C-alpha cells in the first residue's frame, strides 16, 4: 500500500510543485538573462535585484480578472489550457532525476517503464490539442491563425524529432530512460559524442516543438497580437505558460538523458575523475538541464524569428532527410560493429 500508492503520490506532488515553482523562477531567469544580453538591468523593483518578481508574477496572474469572450465556446475555452498543461506535466513521470535512493528505497524518479522515451513522445503529442482548441474556441481570427500554424509546425517537427530519437534508441538498445543512461555508463561515453548529428537535430526540433525563438510563430506578437492565447487572461493564460515552461524543461531533460548521460559525471569511464562522484547525481542532472535552459534563453535573446515558409522548408527538406539518413547510418554501424 505504502510502496504502490502513497510514495508515488508524494513523488507526484513534489514533481508538480517543483515544476510550477521552477517555471516561475525560469521567467525571472529569462528576463534577467535577456536584459543582460541587451545591456539592461531587467526586473529590479520587487526584492533585491528583483528576485521576488518570480513570486509577484504568479500572484498578479491569480488576482487578475479571468475573461471568457462572449462568442467563445465556453467548454472548449476552459478545457484548452488544461489539455495543454496536463500532458506537459504527466511526462515527468518517467524522467530519472538521479540514481540515489532516498531513505534507502525511494527512487528519484516516479516510474521507469520500458517504453519511457516513446511514452514521452506520445503524451507530449496530445498537448497540441490544447493549442489548437484554444485558437478555435476563442472564435477570433488571430488565435485561429496561430493555432493552425502551431498544429502544422508541431506535427512537422514531431516527425523529425521522433526519427532522430529512433537512432538514439538504436544506439542505446532500449527505450527506458534509466536504461539509456545505463547504456551510456556501459559505453563509458555520453551519446553526444556518438550521435552528434542527432544531438543537433533534437536541439533544433526541440526548440520548434516548444514554440521558442526562433520558431515562435504560433505566438508571434508582432503579427498575431499574442498568438493562440490572445483572448486568454489571468490564470488561464498562465496555465499556457506553465505548460510551455514544463515542455521547455522536458526538452532539456530529454536532451540531458539522451545525450549528456543524465545523472552521470563527465567521462564516466575515466577513473581519474572518480572524485567527481562526490557530487550527488541529481546535481549533475540539474546542472546539465540548466545548461540547456540557459542555451534556450541565449538563443531567444539573439536570434530573429523564422519566416513561415523557411520554417517548413527547414523541417521537411532539411531536418527530416538528415534524420532518416542518420537512422540508416546508425543501423548500418550497429550491425557492422
Amino acid at each position, binding site marked *: 500500500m505504502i510502496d504502490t500508492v502513497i510514495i508515488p503520490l508524494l513523488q507526484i506532488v513534489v514533481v508538480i510543485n517543483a515544476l510550477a515553482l521552477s517555471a516561475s523562477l525560469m521567467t525571472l531567469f529569462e528576463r534577467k538573462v535577456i536584459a543582460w544580453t541587451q545591456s539592461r538591468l531587467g526586473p529590479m523593483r520587487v526584492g533585491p535585484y528583483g528576485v521576488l518578481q518570480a513570486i509577484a508574477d504568479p500572484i498578479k496572474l491569480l488576482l487578475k480578472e479571468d475573461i471568457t469572450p462572449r462568442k467563445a*465556446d465556453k*467548454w*472548449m475555452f476552459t478545457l484548452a489550457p488544461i489539455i495543454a498543461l496536463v500532458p506537459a506535466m504527466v511526462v515527468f513521470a518517467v524522467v530519472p532525476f538521479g540514481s540515489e535512493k532516498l531513505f534507502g528505497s525511494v527512487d528519484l524518479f516516479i516510474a521507469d*517503464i*520500458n*517504453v519511457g522515451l*516513446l*511514452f514521452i*513522445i*506520445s*503524451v507530449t*503529442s*496530445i498537448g*497540441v*490539442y490544447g493549442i*489548437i*482548441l484554444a485558437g*478555435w474556441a476563442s472564435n477570433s481570427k488571430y488565435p*485561429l491563425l496561430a*493555432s*493552425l500554424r502551431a*498544429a*502544422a509546425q508541431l*506535427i512537422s517537427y*514531431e516527425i523529425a524529432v521522433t526519427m532522430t530519437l529512433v537512432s538514439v534508441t538504436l544506439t542505446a538498445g532500449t*527505450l527506458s530512460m534509466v536504461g539509456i543512461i545505463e547504456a551510456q555508463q556501459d559505453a563509458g561515453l555520453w551519446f553526444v559524442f556518438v550521435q552528434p548529428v542527432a544531438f543537433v537535430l533534437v536541439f533544433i526540433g526541440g526548440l520548434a516543438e516548444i514554440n521558442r525563438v526562433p520558431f515562435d510563430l504560433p505566438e508571434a506578437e508582432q503579427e498575431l497580437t499574442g498568438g493562440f492565447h490572445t483572448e486568454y487572461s489571468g490564470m488561464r493564460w498562465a496555465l499556457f505558460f506553465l505548460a510551455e515552461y514544463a515542455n521547455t524543461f522536458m526538452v532539456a531533460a530529454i536532451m540531458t538523458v539522451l545525450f549528456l548521460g543524465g545523472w552521470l559525471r563527465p567521462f564516466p569511464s575515466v577513473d581519474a575523475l572518480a572524485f567527481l562522484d562526490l557530487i550527488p547525481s541529481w546535481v549533475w542532472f540539474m546542472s546539465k538541464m540548466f545548461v540547456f535552459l540557459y542555451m534556450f534563453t541565449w538563443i531567444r535573446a539573439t536570434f530573429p524569428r523564422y519566416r513561415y515558409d523557411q520554417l517548413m522548408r527547414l523541417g521537411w527538406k532539411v531536418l527530416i532527410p538528415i534524420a532518416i539518413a542518420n537512422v540508416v547510418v546508425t543501423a548500418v554501424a550497429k550491425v557492422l560493429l
Partner: protein
Amino acid sequence: MAETIAFYTLSILILGLAVLVVTARNTVHSVLFLVMNFLCVAVIYVVLGAEFLAVIQILVYAGGIVVLYLFVVMLVNLTRAPEVHQDPRRISMPMALALAGAMLLELAGIVVYSYVLEPSAPASAAAVLPTEIQGNVEQIGWLLYTDYLIPFEVASILLLVAMVGAIVLAKREL
C-alpha cells in the same frame, strides 16, 4: 478482479464516447470525443500488459491522425453551423445497416469460433518466441521481422503508395 473491473469500466467509457462522437452536434466536439475514445483504448492496452501498443495508439491515433481531422474540421466549418447531411439517393441508411450487420456477424463469428468450436485454440503467439526475447518492444519487433515479415512489408508498400498518391494529387505540376 481489478482487471475485470477496469475492463468493463473502460468498455463502457469507450462505447459511450463512441456514441457521443456520432451524436455530438459540433464537429470539433465530436473530434475531441474521438481523442478521448482512443485514449481509453490505449488504457485497455495497458491493462492487457501491452504498453508498446498503448503508447503507439496514443502517438499515431490520438496525437497524429486526429490532429489532422481537427485541422480539416476547423478549416471547413468555421462560422456556419454544420449543414444537415443531404443524401439525394437515400442509400446511406441501407448501406449503414448492411455494414453494421456485417460487423455484427463477424463479431458473432469470432465469439462462436473461439468459445464453441475451438475452445482450446492457442491464444497467444508469444509462446513461440525464444526465451531471451524479453519486453514488449522486443517481442513485437521479433514477430514483425520473422513470422509477420511479409504482411509487414506489404503494409509499408501500401503506405508508400498512399503517400506517393497523395503527393501526386496535391501537387499537380511536379
